[in-house]
């Protein structure tokens, strides 16, 4: 069975969005976000900690949003 990783993001539609990607795509998300000047963090939701690589046990990742609004 092909491995899938859930990616949790916020922002485009104003609510949490979850999509499933393969490990390679997850690695690319990690690289793209890592070089973002704003340096958004990627969190492994299983541990709640920041990650810099997709590990064999990574199943759920969250990109920390950049929230400017005060409501």
């Amino acid at each position, binding site marked *: 069975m092909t491995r899938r990783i859930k990616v949790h993001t*916020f*922002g*485009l*539609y*104003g*609510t*949490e969005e979850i999509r499933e990607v393969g490990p390679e795509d997850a690695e690319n998300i990690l690289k793209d976000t890592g070089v973002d*000047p*704003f*340096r*958004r*963090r990627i*969190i492994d*939701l299983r541990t*709640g*900690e*920041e990650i810099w690589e997709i590990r064999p046990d990574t199943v759920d990742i*969250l990109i*920390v*949003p*950049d*929230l*400017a*609004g*005060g*409501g």
Partner: protein
Amino acid sequence: MIDRYSRQISFIEIGEQGQKRLGSSSVAIIGCGGLGSIIATSLVRAGVGKVKIIDRGFLEYHNLHRQILYDEDDVCSHLPKAVAAERHLKKVNSSVEVEGIVADLNRRNIEGLLSGADLILDASDNFETRFVINDTCLKHKIPWVYGGVAGSYGMSMNIIPGETPCLRCVYHGPPAGNITSTHERVGIIGPAPIITGSFQSVEAMKILIGVKGINRDLIIADIWKGTFYRIKITLWRECPSCQGKYEFLAETTLRGGMK
């Protein structure tokens, strides 16, 4: 007067001692939109001794669905939010010293405006202001509570100088183009600032009371999806602010848009 707070004092984590500490505390709330409305009303009702509210904006009808401090009369009167907030809050709790200040907070006036505050609550609407708050609070060792909101979600984090990571440890600097109005792009629902501002208000009370073991995580909650995350933030070893380099308070700033 104690009767006003009797239910709050009965809450064991606060008690009479905690109530006294709240009463002798002074806070500044930066921004009085959705987040600032809920924070200000929560802390004034809770009996925080002095509440200063700083906001540059004027009320508009599209604020009313989420900015719970205000009403249609305030909009018709074209009142600044800081003025309307002060009026309403003084009626809520006359024993609290409420001061509304109509001002555009920036690196030149921030140290004067925040002087004397025990705690700063961020309810601003842009990242550059937040980095100015961050540097000021680190410089003067004032704890502050970050808050941001958009759509149906919000996030909050306590920043205690010398103890926790700071905002620059989370975000190294403002995003390109500084996103000033996410609400115009993705909209916002009223309960999002209410839940996020409530997190900030509770953390403020805990910090003012001196509760041990305050929350050190970044909190993200989506009220529409019913999801809640606690994110462990680590110190950024090269963080200029944590090393005493307050670049956002300097005349030459990191970005051209700073005032």
